[in-house]
C-alpha cells in the first residue's frame, strides 16, 4: 500500500491528504474503478445490504446501550423505558430488534447465492471461510443480544442453549459455569453477555474487512461462474454497481421498514414481553426464527450413540473415504468395500435398535455407557452442520462453479434449500409434536440425514461424475448472446 505510483487529485485538500496517506487512491482503486464482472444479477446486492445492516445494528445498538441497564432487576424495565420514555426509543428498539432478523435474511440470501453459483470454490476458499466466521459470530451476537431484554424467552433460551455445552465431555461443565459466571443463568451471565454483545459486532466488522480484502484479491464471481478473461468482461464498480446496489438496498430497506412500522413484533415471540421468571418455565421454548433449522437438527438426535452404533458409523466412514472421496480406492477393493458397508450399516442399525429397546440385555448398550449420549449427539450434529459449510470447498471439487451449468447439483442443492426451510418449521414446533401419528423428530432426523448426505456423499460424487453443460467462452460473449436473443424476440 502506498508504494505504487499515485495519480494526482484535482482537489487540493484531497491531494494534500492523499499524498501523505493514499486513502483516496485506495478507495478509488477498490470502489471506484474496481473492475467487476458485468453480468451480476440482483443476488449480488446482498453483500452490500448485509454491510448496511451491520452498520445499522452498531449505530442503533450503541444508542440503545446508552439507555439500557444490564442488571437482572432492571434490564426488562430499562428496555420498556426505552420503548415508552426515551424520545424515539420505540423506533430505535424496533430497528435493532427487526434489524437482527433482516441482517440474517440478507446474510442467508448472500450464502445461498454463494452456494448456488459456486462462489466458495477455488480461488475463493478463504473468502468463503471468512464469511462463515462472520456467520458464526453473528449467531453468537444475536443469541447473546436476545438475552439482554431479560424476558421469559431471553432467560429460558439462554438456559437451554448454554446448557447444551455441558454435553461436551470433561470440560463441558466448566464451560457452562464460565458462561454463567455462577451456577445458573443470573446477573453475572447478563452482565458478561452485555459486554460481549457490545464487543462482538466490532469483531465482525474486522472480519468483514478481511472478507472484503480477500474479495478484492480474487475479484468477484458471477452468475456464469467463469473467470474474467479480460477488460471486455468487466465494468468499473462505480457508477454501475453503486447505482444498482443502491437501488436494491432501498427496496430491501422498504420491506424492512414495513416490519418496523407495521408488524414490529411479528418476528419475535410474545413471551419475551413477560419479565424473566426462573420459577416459571414457558410452555414452549423456541429460539429466534433464524436458528430454527439448526435447532431442529439439534433435536433430531433423540437416541444415544452406543458402541455398536459408533463402530458401525466408523465402518461406514471408511467406505465413504475410500469409495466416495478418493478418486480411486487405495486400500480396498469393491467386494471388501461392500462387505464393510453392509457390516457397518447392520451394526449401526443394531446399535440404534438396542438403544430404542433398553430392556434387551446386550452388553455395552445401556444409555449410561453410551460414549455419545443423545444430548452430545445433538450438539455435535448442530455444530457439524455448520462445519459442513466451512469445508464445502473441499467437498465439492467440480470444476464448474455455477449451478446453471450443473443440472444435478442444481436439483440436489435446491432440494437442500427446501428441506432446510422445512427443518426450520420442524424446529418451531413443540418437541412432542407429530404429523399423522409420526413424531416430527423422525422427519427432523430424515431431513438432517439429507443435509449431511448432501455434503458428505452427493457433493463428492457429483464432483466426480456430473458432466455439466457447456460453458460460454466468456462473460462478454454470453452477455452479447443474451442481448441478441432479447432483440430477436422483440423484433
Amino acid at each position, binding site marked *: 500500500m502506498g508504494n505504487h505510483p499515485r495519480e494526482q487529485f484535482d482537489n487540493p485538500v484531497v491531494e494534500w491528504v492523499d499524498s501523505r496517506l493514499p486513502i483516496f487512491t485506495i478507495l478509488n482503486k477498490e470502489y471506484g474503478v474496481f473492475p467487476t464482472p458485468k453480468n451480476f444479477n440482483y443476488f449480488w446486492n446482498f453483500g452490500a445490504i448485509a454491510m448496511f445492516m451491520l452498520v445499522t445494528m452498531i449505530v442503533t445498538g450503541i444508542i440503545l446501550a446508552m439507555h439500557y441497564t444490564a442488571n437482572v432487576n432492571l434490564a426488562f424495565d430499562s428496555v420498556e423505558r426505552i*420503548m415508552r420514555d426515551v424520545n424515539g426509543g420505540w423506533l430505535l428498539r424496533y430497528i435493532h430488534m427487526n434489524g437482527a432478523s433482516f441482517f440474517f435474511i440478507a446474510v442467508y440470501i448472500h450464502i445461498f447465492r454463494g452456494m448456488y453459483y459456486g462462489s466458495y470454490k477455488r480461488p475463493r476458499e478463504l473468502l468463503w471461510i471468512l464469511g462463515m466466521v462472520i456467520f458464526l459470530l453473528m449467531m453468537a451476537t444475536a443469541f447473546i443480544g436476545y438475552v439482554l431484554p431479560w424476558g421469559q424467552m431471553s432467560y429460558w433460551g439462554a438456559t437451554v442453549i448454554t446448557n447444551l455445552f455441558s454435553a461436551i465431555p470433561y470440560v463441558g461443565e466448566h464451560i457452562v459455569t464460565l458462561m454463567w459466571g455462577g451456577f445458573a443463568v443470573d446477573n453475572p451471565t447478563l452482565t458478561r453477555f452485555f459486554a460481549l454483545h457490545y464487543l462482538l459486532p466490532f469483531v465482525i466488522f474486522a472480519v468483514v474487512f478481511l472478507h472484503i480484502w480477500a474479495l478484492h484479491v480474487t475479484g468477484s464471481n458471477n452468475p456464469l461462474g467463469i473467470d474474467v478473461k479480460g477488460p471486455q468482461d468487466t465494468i468499473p464498480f462505480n457508477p454501475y454497481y453503486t447505482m444498482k446496489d443502491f437501488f436494491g438496498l*432501498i427496496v430491501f430497506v422498504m420491506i424492512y421498514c414495513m416490519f418496523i*412500522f407495521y408488524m414490529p413484533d411479528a418476528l419475535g415471540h410474545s413471551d419475551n414481553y413477560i419479565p424473566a421468571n426462573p420459577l416459571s418455565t414457558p410452555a414452549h421454548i423456541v429460539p429466534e426464527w433464524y436458528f430454527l433449522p439448526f435447532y431442529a437438527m439439534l433435536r433430531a438426535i433423540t437416541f444415544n450413540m452406543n458402541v455398536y452404533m459408533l463402530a458401525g458409523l466408523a465402518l461406514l466412514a471408511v467406505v465413504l473415504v475410500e469409495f466416495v472421496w478418493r478418486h480411486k480406492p487405495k486400500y480396498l477393493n469393491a467386494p471388501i468395500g461392500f462387505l464393510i458397508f453392509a457390516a457397518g450399516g447392520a451394526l449401526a442399525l443394531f446399535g440404534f435398535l438396542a438403544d430404542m429397546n433398553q430392556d434387551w440385555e446386550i452388553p455395552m448398550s445401556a444409555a449410561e455407557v453410551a460414549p455419545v449420549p443423545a444430548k452430545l449427539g445433538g450438539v455435535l450434529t448442530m455444530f457439524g452442520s455448520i462445519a459442513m459449510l466451512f469445508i464445502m470447498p473441499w467437498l465439492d471439487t467440480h470444476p464448474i462453479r455455477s449451478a446453471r451449468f450443473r443440472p444435478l447439483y442444481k436439483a440436489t442443492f*435446491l432440494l437442500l434449500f427446501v428441506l432446510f426451510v422445512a427443518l426450520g*418449521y420442524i424446529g418451531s414446533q413443540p418437541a412432542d409434536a407429530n404429523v399423522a401419528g409420526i413424531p416430527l423428530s423422525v422427519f427432523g432426523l430424515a431431513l438432517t440425514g439429507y443435509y449431511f448426505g448432501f455434503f458428505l456423499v452427493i457433493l463428492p460424487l457429483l464432483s466426480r461424475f456430473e458432466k455439466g453443460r457447456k460453458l460460454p467462452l466468456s462473460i462478454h460473449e454470453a452477455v452479447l448472446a443474451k442481448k441478441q436473443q432479447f432483440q430477436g424476440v422483440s423484433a
Partner: protein
Amino acid sequence: MKARHLIPVLAIAVGAILPLAPASANSGGAEPLVHQDWSFDGPFGTYDKASLQRGLKIYREVCAGCHSLKRVYFRNLEGIGYNEEQIKAIASQYTVQDGPNDEGEMFDRPAKPSDYIPSPFPNDNAAKSANNGALPPDLSLITKAREDGANYVFSLLTGFEAAPHGVEMSETQHWNKYFPGHKISMPPPLSPGQVSYADDGSPETLEQYAKDISHFLTWAADPYMEERKRTGVKVILFLLVFAGIMLGLKKKTWADLH
C-alpha cells in the same frame, strides 16, 4: 421468465411459504379466539378515544382491584384524549407514598401527572396472598405478552362458562374456554351493567366492556402505535419515490453499456 429461472424461483417460493402453513397448531388445546374488528387494525388503524376512556373506567373500577398497570404514568393518559386538567383531577384521586422529607420521614400525598398509576398491592407476595396464591399479572404489556393479544383478552373475558361435567376444579378455579389449560384462578371479573356508561350511552353489556378494556390495554402496551403507523406511511412513501428515482438513474447509467 425463462424456464431456467423458474425452478430456483419456485424453490424459493415453496421455501418461503412452507413455514407459514400450519403454524398455529400449538394453541395447547384451547379454542380458537373470537376475532373482533378493531379500529387499530391495519396500516392506517387508529385508537378509538371514546373506547379507550371507557376502558380506563373499567380498569379503574374493576381490574385495578387485583391487577397493576405499573408502566403507565398518569401523564400518558393524554394519549387517550384527556387534557392536563382532567389528568390532574384523575391523578389527585390516588394517594402515593413519597419521601423521605427533610425530617427523613416517608409521607403520603395525592398523585401527580408525573406519577405512575399506583399498584393495588405493595408486592407480588401480597398480590398472591390476596388471590388464593395466584398472581394477577401486571396488565401494562398483557396484549403484547400474549399471541394476538387484543383478541385474546377479549376472548378470555367473555370465555367463562360452567366447567364440563366431571372435571375436578378447586374452589378458587374457574373454567375458561380460552385460557391455556382452562382452569384460571381469576373469578369472572365482568358482568352486564356492572360499570356505568351513563356518560356516553354505550351499551352496558359484557361484550362492550370486554371490547373497551381490551382496546385500552392494547393502547397501554403500545402507546405509540398511531405515531408509528403515521411515520411508517411517510417513510414508505419516501422510499418508494427514492427507489423509483434510483431505478431510473440505474437504468440511465446502464443504458450506455453494450
